[in-house]
């Protein structure tokens, strides 16, 4: 009985523990945790440079510093005419003889005296395409004279080129033909033509001609002279090239090509829609350091829609232009040729049908009016470059202009934990442009599985403009793209996403002219709301 309290204690303690209402964690049924998360993803502010000049850094957004007006300028280097393509230099390769008579030698059974005579010979220096070379400065070349004679005597030759000077002195050299018992005996002379000034006019009497004076001194060896001996001379050049050249380069066709300018603005265009720049202009800028008149002929200027091949010809424009040329060696002059609404009939309208290229034919002729009092000239570095600039002042209207792109899509993440996703796009738009969009999610056969919107939806509300076409009120639009469980379950099958955009300027279909200025910008904000579905 003494142990009774202990027994009570044990019994009651057990009762208390067992009877406690404790949480049965093993009884927790499967349940879901659905946190709803809202996070900002990205934001940015885009100005005219970001929007219109992002694809190609060569494209230039031009701001009028006074008004802030924006123009797009698409630049392209069309062609280059090198000076060496206008004037080429043929290598010299001529032969002539100096006869016994030229050397004042008569038949003799034994000649022991000494007779000195001079002989002058001309040979031609020919350029390509019949150009007339008056003078030139050579930057390289080698002139070689080879002599061979059947005279059984020693001969000393003094060779002088009065038309070729180096450092102001005519080029001259002594050559010794020594008789050693056999004939013919030979000798040669080599001249380095680097930095040689060459006058091909022979004292302004002709062109393309060089003169060589050869003084011969025959020292008799006692052998006979039959009177038929001579000295055979061959003249040749190698690697002869000019640094500059003066002359008359003739009437040559130096260019005949077709080219085109890419309009990046329309690169992904669907070929649909209409837009009109109120005052576009095409500028051709010729820069020439070639010292001769060149006339270019511009033909078949047109715009081309690549997708359809449809062409729109520019009409009413002047087609022949004379390119200014420098008045001195090393000079550089520009010639500006402008096509705009003032000198064409339809430049605004041919830009309008969303072309991708501006195409044209271009030919060029030298000395279109024949020789003149002033010599043509050029150097080995002379060029005539023709650059084009298509300037599109952002002033006009557009509508129905579409872009479409399809991008591969492959979802590798497990989205089983996602119940709902909402992408929120907030566009605070300072441009007078409206953008509607549709996003289609397609399988590998391009079948549309689902779309972001029931129909194309405006995602960028256009800014409103005043009577001057200047933005007076920004456009603001919040667009939610909701993917619920049905769409999310299809995402693993999505292999392509087609993004289609349709844009127009503010009231573009009504022809309302809007203007773009450098203070316009577009503020974009992308956020996401996601409801997770975590079962445990």
């Amino acid at each position, binding site marked *: 009985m003494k142990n009774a309290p202990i027994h009570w204690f044990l019994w009651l303690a057990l009762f*208390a523990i067992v009877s406690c209402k404790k949480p049965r964690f093993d009884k927790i049924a499967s349940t879901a*945790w659905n946190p709803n998360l*809202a996070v900002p993803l990205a934001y940015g502010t885009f100005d005219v440079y970001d929007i219109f000049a992002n694809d190609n850094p060569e494209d230039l957004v031009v701001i009028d510093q006074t008004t802030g007006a924006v123009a797009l300028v698409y630049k392209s280097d069309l062609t280059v005419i090198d000076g060496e393509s206008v004037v080429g230099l043929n290598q010299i390769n001529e032969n002539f003889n100096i006869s016994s008579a030229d050397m004042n030698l008569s038949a003799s059974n034994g000649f022991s005296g000494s007779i000195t005579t001079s002989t002058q010979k001309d040979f031609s220096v020919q350029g390509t395409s019949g150009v007339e070379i008056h003078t030139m400065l050579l930057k390289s070349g080698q002139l070689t004279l080879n002599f061979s004679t059947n005279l059984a005597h020693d001969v000393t030759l003094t060779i002088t080129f009065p038309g070729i000077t180096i450092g102001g002195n005519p080029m001259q050299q002594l050559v010794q033909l020594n008789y050693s018992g056999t004939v013919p005996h030979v000798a040669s002379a080599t001249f380095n033509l680097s930095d040689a000034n060459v006058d091909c006019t022979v004292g302004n009497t002709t062109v393309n001609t060089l003169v060589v004076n050869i003084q011969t001194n025959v020292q008799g060896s006692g052998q006979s002279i039959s009177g038929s001996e001579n000295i055979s001379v061959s003249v040749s050049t190698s690697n002869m090239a000019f640094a500059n050249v003066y002359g008359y380069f003739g009437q040559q066709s130096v260019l005949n090509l077709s080219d085109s300018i890419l309009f990046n603005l329309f690169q992904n265009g669907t070929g649909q829609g209409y837009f009109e720049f109120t005052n576009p202009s095409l500028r051709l800028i010729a820069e020439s350091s070639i010292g001769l008149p060149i006339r270019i002929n511009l033909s078949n200027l047109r715009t081309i829609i690549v997708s359809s091949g449809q062409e729109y010809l520019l009409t009413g424009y002047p087609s022949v232009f004379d390119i200014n040329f420098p008045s001195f060696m090393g000079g550089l002059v520009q010639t500006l040729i402008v096509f705009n609404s003032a000198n064409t009939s339809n430049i605004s309208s041919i830009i309008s049908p969303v072309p991708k290229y501006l195409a044209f034919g271009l030919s060029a002729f030298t000395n279109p009016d024949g020789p003149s009092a002033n010599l043509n000239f050029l150097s080995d570095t002379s060029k005539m470059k023709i650059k084009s600039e298509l300037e599109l002042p952002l002033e006009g209207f557009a509508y129905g202009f579409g872009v479409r792109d399809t991008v591969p899509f492959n979802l590798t993440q497990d989205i089983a934990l996602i119940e709902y996703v909402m992408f929120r796009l907030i566009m605070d738009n300072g441009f007078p442009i409206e953008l509607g969009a549709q996003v289609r999610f397609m399988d590998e056969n391009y079948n549309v599985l689902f779309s972001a919107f029931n129909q194309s939806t405006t995602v960028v509300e256009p800014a409103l403009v005043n009577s001057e076409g200047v933005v007076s009120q920004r456009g603001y639009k919040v667009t939610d793209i909701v993917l619920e469980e049905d769409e999310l379950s299809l995402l693993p099958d999505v292999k392509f996403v087609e993004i289609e955009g349709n844009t127009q300027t503010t009231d573009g279909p009504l022809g309302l002219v809007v203007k773009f200025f450098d203070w316009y910008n577009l503020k974009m904000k992308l956020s*996401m709301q996601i409801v997770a579905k975590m079962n445990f």
Partner: protein
Amino acid sequence: MKNRIHTQLVVLLLSLFATQNLLAQRNFTLHQHQNMHQAIHLNPAFRPNVRVYVNLALGMHSFGLNHSGFTMNELLYKRDYDDSLEFRPAEAIAKMDQTNHINLDFQNELFGLGIRIGKTHFSLTATNRTQFSFIYPRDLFRFVFEGNGGSLLGERADLDGLGLKFNSYIEYALGANRTFFDDRLVLGARFKLISGIANVHTAKSQLGIYTDPQTFDITIDGAMHAYSSSPDALNTLDFNLQNIGFQNLLNFPNLGMGMDFGATFKLNDMFDFSASVVDLGYIRWKSNTKNFISNDVNFTFEGVDINDFMADSSSFVNNFTDSLTGVFNASQNNDAYTTSLNTRFYFGATFKVLPVLHLNALWFNEFILGHYRPGLSLGGTLKLGEILSASANYSIYGRSATNVGLGLNLRLGSVQFFAMTDNVLGVLNLSGSKNWHANFGFAVLIGKPDKAPENKSME
């Protein structure tokens, strides 16, 4: 037979308290037993009805746990059609207050000595005190379970006050009380010398997360000042006895002082009143301090800046990390700091219905980290001779109105045993309660119980 019933009742309560789930800290039930030595921890004017009290390590052990936010049943809902539990955080959130507490309190009287000399009662105690409070705002749960895109969208998730306070210290208390005016008034006080062992607390905690309802931009604002003082063991993870902090019992590396004041007043033979303020004091923490002071943060995350990303995608992550580091910057120091004790106020009244039956009312007040936490208790105490006194009460505290306390004090010769709880429902319905509490102890009592005051009042 009477003794047998008493014994069984004692064992029943003991077994209930022995379950480790019974915890609490306010000791409403102990407050009804004003003639116990242990009650001087609640009011230094309480007078034990014994000449000498001696406790060697077992005198009083009080454990308490309170969660003011929600009960387990409110989080795990029992379905009607089967006995499965359904996880319903929304229900729990709906039950929460804006600011909620989880409080854990241990109080162990390691040594106790009480001597009554004439009209003066002297006491000397050494008590281990450990208090832990975690304060969390309702919006923390809303943020975690609902996310920021639900009901918090467009609303600041108010996480201000999120923080904790952990205090561990030894208090050495020397107390005395004395009767005045023909024993109708008792004034008492206890002076405490405190040796701090460890402390962690957030002196400033402000945190808000606002999600813009349209852009979903997330703005974080706030500041945090956190202080800590810990034994070497926590710093070095070397838990030998020296590092754990037992040397702090006597060498006072973190010195503190405190006071308890109390009074009781016998209005007449029917009504007694009591009032006390306990744990009025501070601890100066100097040992192994590490303090973190963040700067004031107001940062809005708007997403990835596309312009920056396009300009330099390679260094974008580093730049973003650098900017975040600059925003969420905190300085660290090892300065000494001071914390106050968890000061409590008790205001009690006793209505003596019968000599053996007293009715009690108690108003409890406490401040933790600037948060006021009141409590109210109504109870009755049954005195069965000098051997047994039993009590029961109903309390409202910790945002819970379902607290029933039971207490029993048994004196068998020179041995005292008591066991009490402020909420017996906590053990009977563990998952449906917010408060758990147990308080028990053994002590040696020398001298016969002092019956004179009781006889006077009864007469």
